[in-house]
């Protein structure tokens, strides 16, 4: 019983962690609080389903195509929408409110387009839907694949940020965007990369969710909320924190669903979120 919760929670949590990584990159590096994040996730999910059903492409191959497409989408979104806002606002305060409201509009725009294209029905695909025995617990193979994708993508990102020169530049901009230009960093370019990379992660997370879960065009807000909860729990811009918090949230949700009441998982998410915001707004792992 406990082992089941643990394994299922880990699998769910890894998807959440990947989901949150993108948001934390966007907010940490590009300084854009993207409230349309969940909708971008859904775009990935719907594209995967469409490609799988219409073209018969294997989801794993589709994933390789979806990731760069997401990067391009994020690149254009930043260039077209966010950059003018960043330019307009000198100080931080204005950008925060503006970016919230603008991405809010984007949220409805994408949601509306998805509703027009795919309708409001619940969508799912059946792909590798057979159980695999993991330590005596039966886990669907598609979930395990999603878990693998999250581990690979998340792990690669953490390593790249920590070890490479590119990661160093990213972290420099996240830490002090004001002083980064002094050492010859093009903040605008880096912010654009961060935003695009975040979008790529969002669509990959969405595509991996689509492999094993039912979803609908109006679910975006839920994904955004969950990603936000994790980002704030882990500390804004803190990549490792987001990974840990994501897995923790997956475990918690699975626990609440099995031990208390499935109807309370969302309430539990929000409750935790409120508690963390009040008790440690700098995140569980952040320093004051």
């Amino acid at each position, binding site marked *: 019983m406990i082992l089941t919760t643990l394994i299922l929670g880990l699998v769910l949590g890894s998807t959440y962690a990947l989901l949150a990584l993108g948001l934390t990159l966007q907010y940490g590096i590009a300084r854009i609080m993207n409230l349309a994040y969940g909708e971008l996730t859904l775009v990935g999910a719907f594209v995967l389903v469409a490609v799988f059903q219409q073209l018969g492409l294997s989801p794993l191959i589709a994933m390789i195509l979806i990731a760069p497409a997401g990067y391009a989408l994020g690149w254009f979104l930043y260039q077209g929408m966010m950059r003018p806002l960043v330019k307009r606002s000198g100080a931080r305060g204005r950008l925060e409110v503006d970016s919230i409201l*603008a991405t809010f*509009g984007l*949220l*409805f725009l*994408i949601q509306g387009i998805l509703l027009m294209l795919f309708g409001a029905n619940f969508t799912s695909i059946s792909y590798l839907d057979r159980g695999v025995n993991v330590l005596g617990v039966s886990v669907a193979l598609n979930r395990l694949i999603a878990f693998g994708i999250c581990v690979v993508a998340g792990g690669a990102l953490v390593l790249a940020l920590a070890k490479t020169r590119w990661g160093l530049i990213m972290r420099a901009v996240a830490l002090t965007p004001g002083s980064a230009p002094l050492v010859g960093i093009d903040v605008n370019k880096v912010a654009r990369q961060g935003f695009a990379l975040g979008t790529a992660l969002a669509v990959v997370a969405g595509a991996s969710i689509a492999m094993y879960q039912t979803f609908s065009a109006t679910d975006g807000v839920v994904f955004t*909320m969950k990603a936000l909860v994790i980002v*704030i729990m882990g500390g804004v811009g803190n990549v490792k924190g987001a990974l840990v918090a994501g897995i923790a949230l997956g475990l918690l949700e699975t626990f609440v669903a099995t031990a208390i009441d499935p109807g309370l998982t969302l309430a539990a998410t*929000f409750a935790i979120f*409120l508690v963390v*915001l009040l008790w440690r707004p700098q995140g569980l792992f952040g320093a004051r």
Partner: protein
Amino acid sequence: MTKLIIPLLALVALAFAPNFVSAYGLGLLIGAATYVTLASAWALFSGHTHYVSLATVAFYGTGAYCMAVLNEALPYWAVLLCAGGIGATMAALVGLSTLRLQGVYFVIFSFGLAELVRQLITWYEVNVTGTLGRYIFLDISARDIYWQMLALGAATIALTAWIHRSRLGMALRVIGDDEAVAAHSGINLARVKLIAFVLSAVILTLAGAITSPRYVYVEPAIVFNPTVSFLTVIMALLGGANRLWGPALGAVPLFLVFEWLSTNFPDSYPIFMGLLFIGVVFLLPDGILAGIEKLRARRKVQS
């Protein structure tokens, strides 16, 4: 003096309006009055402080639920009192704990709050009372609802006008400009923000309670519909959230547009809403009123 007379005449004219319109027209009047009230009440707190609150529907829905739960046990006026009291208590609790959060944290918190309240009521209704929906059968006509909402809206705008001139309004403006400066000049940040937040929340709750008999059937998904929060924000911003008449000016046309869109293009409704949000942020960041003033100032310079 004219500043006082014109609004009063308009109010009297609006009060007699139900005599000249159809039932559908009256419905539109009620809706417009409701959104004017909501947007003005929202701006009462958020307009000057720049704390973007998405918790509007948390209070609005709570008000509607108060009416649904209590309308058979208590007389109408007592239910309204209860709703106001509950809204104030909720706002005080939330405000005390959250108003030190800034910027995006507050936005997300307020949004999470609305969802949390909705989830909890849904869970409570399903598991404890056993029914999800409730009916409101009240002997109250659409006209009564309209007059009450009109009175509430007028009271909100009057209250806003008074606050703008008072020390409280001054303090709110300073907080919106710079909290550190506000604290240094001796403004009690927590108290000022809390007073404005509670006042705004009481009005929102009352608006929910007054308009709820129109629904007849009430369930969490209906009265805690987050779209209400979003619409309120965009209406207030379009008109100009820090102006006295800004929210009202934004609410009336937008309400009519959205009403028309949702009957004629129910599918593409979110797209319009999204484009509108983006358009307001890019083209009219301070609202229509400020935009007009800017245009006038430019003309003056030219001539």
